[in-house]
């Protein structure tokens, strides 16, 4: 077995066993890490693969969360049934807002996406359409049921979140190596050359946005189920920054890096809680050091080698 495979198995085994020797507090920390890992992985499609500077991911997360919260509290639809619907709501929202801005590049796109997350937050605070509950938010979201079993404790949520995260990782690994993943990689490297090579860059960028938003919306569904209360303060600009940081710090474009980033950014402040006030100082200093010594993230993506086996090599001897 390759070392990477061994490492994968060990990590998965440790994560599966973790709740057995952790108290509910630490399991809850792991749950946060898991949710942020899914969010960061979904942002990674936009930021890491396509290279679009998008700092408004909390807006899509909010769309999913509020879709679940509203439909569950108003119409009593079971929470987990709303999982795909929350994704669709966030995806549709992303399609509408991303379409006119998709041609923007770099920092210009960044500023617009910051605008989006603020607009969404302020709309939620102002109780838009009278359905978001204003600054108080929405409470009384029911617990998810799975096969007749109610998911309630942190330990139960742990397995729901990690099953979702595992499914996300498996799907996104496939995505990375698909034609779609390749196209995004080319677009990130040089979008003019990609367009000139016959890649519909606007289309692929938009699909990346919609797919990333769809996944963030689904994460929002689980977030709503876990919190049972949602309010606009969960979707501030700072949340977007945290997701952005996880991707950039962990290694944008690398799934392992993003997962590690989620553990570090969400987990470390909890570990260093004793340092109280100074912990954000440590955290900030660590980030500065990181960006100096590993500007591409802790685990930068390896140079891509795509499986081109369907194109057999020509017999040896010609030209070589």
């Amino acid at each position: 077995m390759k070392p990477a495979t061994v490492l994968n198995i060990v990590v998965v085994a440790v994560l599966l066993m973790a709740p057995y020797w952790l108290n509910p507090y630490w399991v809850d920390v792991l749950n946060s890490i898991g949710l942020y890992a899914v969010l960061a992985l979904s942002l990674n499609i936009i930021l890491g693969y396509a290279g679009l500077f998008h700092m408004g991911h909390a807006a899509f997360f909010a769309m999913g969360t509020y879709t679940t919260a509203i439909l569950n509290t108003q119409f009593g639809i079971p929470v987990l049934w709303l999982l795909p619907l929350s994704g669709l709501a966030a995806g549709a929202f992303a399609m509408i807002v991303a379409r006119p801005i998709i041609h923007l590049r770099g920092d210009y796109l960044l500023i617009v996406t910051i605008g989006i997350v603020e607009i969404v937050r302020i709309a939620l605070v102002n109780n838009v359409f009278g359905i978001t509950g204003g600054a108080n938010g929405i409470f009384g979201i029911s617990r998810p049921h799975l096969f007749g079993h109610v998911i309630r404790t942190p330990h139960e949520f742990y397995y729901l979140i990690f099953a979702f995260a595992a499914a996300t990782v498996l799907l996104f690994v496939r995505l990375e190596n698909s034609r779609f993943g390749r196209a995004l990689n080319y677009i990130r490297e040089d979008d003019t050359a990609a367009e000139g090579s016959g890649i519909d860059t606007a289309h692929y960028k938009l699909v990346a946005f919609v797919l990333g938003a769809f996944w963030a919306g689904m994460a929002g569904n689980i977030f709503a189920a876990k919190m049972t209360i949602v309010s606009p303060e969960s979707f501030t600009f700072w949340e977007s920054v945290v997701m952005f940081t996880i991707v950039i710090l962990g290694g944008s474009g690398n799934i392992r890096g993003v997962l590690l980033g989620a553990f570090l950014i969400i987990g470390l402040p909890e570990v260093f809680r004793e340092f109280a006030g100074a912990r954000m100082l440590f955290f900030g200093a660590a980030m500065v050091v990181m960006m100096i010594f590993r500007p591409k993230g802790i685990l930068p993506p390896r140079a891509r080698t795509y499986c081109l086996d369907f194109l057999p090599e020509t017999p040896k001897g010609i030209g070589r």
Partner: protein
Amino acid sequence: MLLRVENLTVKYGNVEVLHGLNLHVAKGEIVTILGANGAGKSTTLMTISGLVRSSSGGIFFHDRPLHQLEAHGIVGLGVAQVPEGRRVFTTLSVRENLHLGAFTQTDPALIRRNLDWVYEMFPILRTRRSQLAGTLSGGEQQMLAIGRGLMANPKILLLDEPSLGLAPILVKSIFSTIREINKSGVTIVLVEQNARLALKLADRGYVLETGRIVLEDTAKGLLADPEVRTAYLGGV
């Protein structure tokens, strides 16, 4: 006529850089566009390939209006551009760069055949196929850029300054390969600063000055033209 450009006008913001350009390219030809810096040569090519939008006029490929299509759709029709400055994907291997060129192609057998063809044309690319494109020399990167263009299975290849920044000996070898590519049935539009070399290779040429075509003739005719000789061929 394979490619017709009619009254093409292009603006960058408010500045008009091409003022009603007319040119045509017949099947199997090598046509060169000459001109000084800023004359609009690259803009012409970029507009044909759809990377720059025209503000009026038309571009027709087999009578299909290219100016209404997006760049990626134009590639699909069989018009491939090899951009100025090569723009290969430096973090990908040579093989992946070539494979990217075939993004619009769906038939694996054809992709395979084109890959063999490119390797035959540029044997060095086969030797270096697993190397990252960023580690290639300038000349090799230019070969790779041309190879990537060929992988799109083009009917017409737009070459933007293939001699840029290359040693004379490499330029010679690349130009002879361009002739070979042409002989295998690909029509070529070549934009060059190196007017003498371009005219030796081409069948016909256009001379572009500040966004207008001022001369149009066979390559032999342009080589003999006194004005061209003083302005672009160094007098003699």
